[in-house]
């Protein structure tokens, strides 16, 4: 039985909750005005919790539409965002693929929509477990994308995302992705922040006029998304999205710093988070929940005397090119671990390909090993992660790559196939 409570102001408290519930709490803390959602495993408990909040009177004034498909989810969120409201939704895998057309639409319209992604593998065969191929699939759409490694980070990153997206110099949408089931359905302590503090941290809700330059107001009739000839400003609109995304790197760093100042929790520089990298000669770039366990693997190898370090990639778009170059310069061997596929690309992994491409023509001679693990939610153990690090150490020691690479990439934990 859900009790109806009337607009109780949230005080700072620690709750033991699922990752999905942390996402729902973040939307509530951000005082989102419009939610639209369609159920998909493993995102479902986000929308269930939000239903409790909205129907239970804990989010007064918030409109929650339960639509009939993900395509309609993003379309309705776009409509509400154009009309000048703070919006939220969440989805996973197939749902994100199905809304792909509208994903482009949201970025092209320059809307500050935040979307939580409980990531899962792409079908067929059906797969509902942690794999970031879904959010990677939307990488060229103009959306920012962030990966979370912990439950707290889901809550925190959603708040930081509203801060960045609604910056008037940005006005672009963002995905906040975390591994399906591994984070979405396990419970951990999460600090839900004081509402007053969140209100101070976030920009105010859009006023009656809506966003600057984007509004739906009978007093100021505006047309959105006209057909535009090649000689018009289409190329320039696209260039501006790229220009903005690149400049957004600084905005993300600032938002992260201010977050630390306000709430006392930090996530590296916002774009990446380094772990034991200062004196490391071997490093690994890794993202999502796998990064959490990798911390332990790094610590244990440190105890064995190896100078290993780890870089948690927090943002995939915009890609932290400058930070990655600095990291690569520090070490002799750099592993790049993907939990997503980019078929037919030079490495088969999306992030490893990007890392290699941003090292081009920089004079950096660090050996880079593209790696894959945990595809479709395949378990990656601590022992396995330590072995991954040892493989990198061996490359440093011998100067030779392992002989079991598949088209230049190490697919770790893969079963034997014909």
């Amino acid at each position, binding site marked *: 039985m859900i009790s109806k409570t009337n607009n109780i102001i949230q005080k700072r408290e620690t709750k033991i909750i699922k990752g999905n519930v942390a996402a729902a709490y973040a939307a509530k803390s951000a005082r989102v005005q*419009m939610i*639209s959602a369609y159920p998909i495993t493993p995102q479902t408990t986000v929308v269930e919790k939000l239903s409790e909040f909205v129907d239970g009177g804990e989010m007064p004034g918030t*409109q929650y539409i339960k*639509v009939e*498909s993900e395509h309609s989810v993003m379309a*309705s969120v776009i*409509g509400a965002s154009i009309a000048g409201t703070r*919006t939220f939704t969440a989805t996973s895998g197939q749902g994100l693929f199905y809304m792909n057309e509208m994903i482009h639409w949201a970025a092209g319209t320059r809307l500050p929509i935040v979307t939580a992604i409980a990531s899962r593998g792409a079908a067929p065969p059906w797969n509902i477990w942690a794999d970031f191929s879904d959010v990677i699939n939307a990488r060229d759409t103009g959306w920012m994308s962030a990966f979370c490694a912990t439950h707290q980070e889901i809550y925190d990153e959603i708040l930081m995302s509203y801060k960045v997206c609604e910056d008037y110099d940005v006005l672009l949408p963002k995905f906040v992705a975390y591994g399906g089931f591994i984070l979405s359905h396990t419970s951990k302590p999460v600090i839900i922040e004081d509402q007053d503090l969140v209100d101070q941290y976030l920009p105010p*809700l859009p006023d009656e006029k809506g966003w600057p330059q984007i509004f739906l107001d*009978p007093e100021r009739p505006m047309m959105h998304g006209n057909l535009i000839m090649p000689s018009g400003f289409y190329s320039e609109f696209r260039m501006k999205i790229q220009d903005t995304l690149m400049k957004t790197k600084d905005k993300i760093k600032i938002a992260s710093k201010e977050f630390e100042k306000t709430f006392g929790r930090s996530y590296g520089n916002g774009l990446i988070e380094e772990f034991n990298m200062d004196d490391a000669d071997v490093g690994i770039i890794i993202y999502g929940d796998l990064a959490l366990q990798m911390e332990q693997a790094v610590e244990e190898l440190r105890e064995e005397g190896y100078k290993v370090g780890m870089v948690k990639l927090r943002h995939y778009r915009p890609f932290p090119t400058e930070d990655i170059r600095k990291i690569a310069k520090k070490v002799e061997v750099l592993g790049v671990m993907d939990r997503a596929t980019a078929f037919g690309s030079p490495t088969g992994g999306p992030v490893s390909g990007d890392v290699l491409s941003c090292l081009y023509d920089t004079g950096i001679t660090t050996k880079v090993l593209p790696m894959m693990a945990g595809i479709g939610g395949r378990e990656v153990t601590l022992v396995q992660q330590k072995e991954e690090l040892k493989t990198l150490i061996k490359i440093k020691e011998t100067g030779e790559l392992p002989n079991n690479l598949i088209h230049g990439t190490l697919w770790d934990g893969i079963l034997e196939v014909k």
Partner: protein
Amino acid sequence: MVTIKETLNEACEEYFLPGNSCCAGCGLEIALRWAMKALGPKTALVTPASCLNVVIGLWPKTAPNFPFINMAFAAGASAATGVDAAFKAKAYRFPNQGWDKMTTLVFAGDGGTTDIGIQALSGAAERNSNILYVCYDNEAYMNTGIQRSSSTPHSAITTTTPFGKQRYKKNLPRIMEAHEIPYIATCSVSEPLDLYEKFKKAKDIEGCKYIHILAPCPPGWGYGAEDTIEMARLAIKSGLWILYEVENGVKTISKASKKYVDPSKRIPLIEYLSKQKRFRTVSEQQLIKLQEGIDKSWKVILSEIEAQEK
């Protein structure tokens, strides 16, 4: 029924302005012009992919002087649902500013309604979203070059049915009836007063409203630009297009179609077909099939009205 004089007095304001790039004799233009006269300035329009995306003006030219969102093909009804939700959220934060009085209108073609947009429309209708959804029906994909849609009538030639369509026109108003929404109406551009009144009525109804307008298309149907009104009128006179309303489940035949309840008052269908090049290959057998379709529609609609009167 309003008189012409009354309508002209209260509807002199124009919202869909001259300078748009509609073809001469465009049925859509008449439909939108009169719809907006009835709805007034507190209206936000969502248009999925259709002729309307183009004819409202290439950027930076814009013909509408009301808020307008161009939307993806399948997303008319869903985007409008979101717009309406935002107006409700704004009405909560900024009460008494008229945000709760906004009309969220969708103007979609028959392809965007009966084919690719039907899922979103059905969803919005089932939720009873507070939107007014309008299908301007020119009976094919005219914007992309006259391809068949599920709203194309039997025997009509299109670029993808070079020998005439083999299937009947999908009856979307009936599908909408199955959703039990508060208001459904059919309109024709040849009856602007009827259209004006129905939009006025729909505007004040809370929930999902659906209006289906027959909007002839000179290049798509193959007739002269000066004959749009005549084509729409012949469709009514032959009994092919029936004007009616369904208010809270109660169906009534509108004035312009009442006369044609009596089959002897209807003009022969061939008079309608023979004026359009798209029907140039209609055989005697096809004519019989089309006539059977008309007779069946009337039979169904009249039996329903009879049943509700009992």
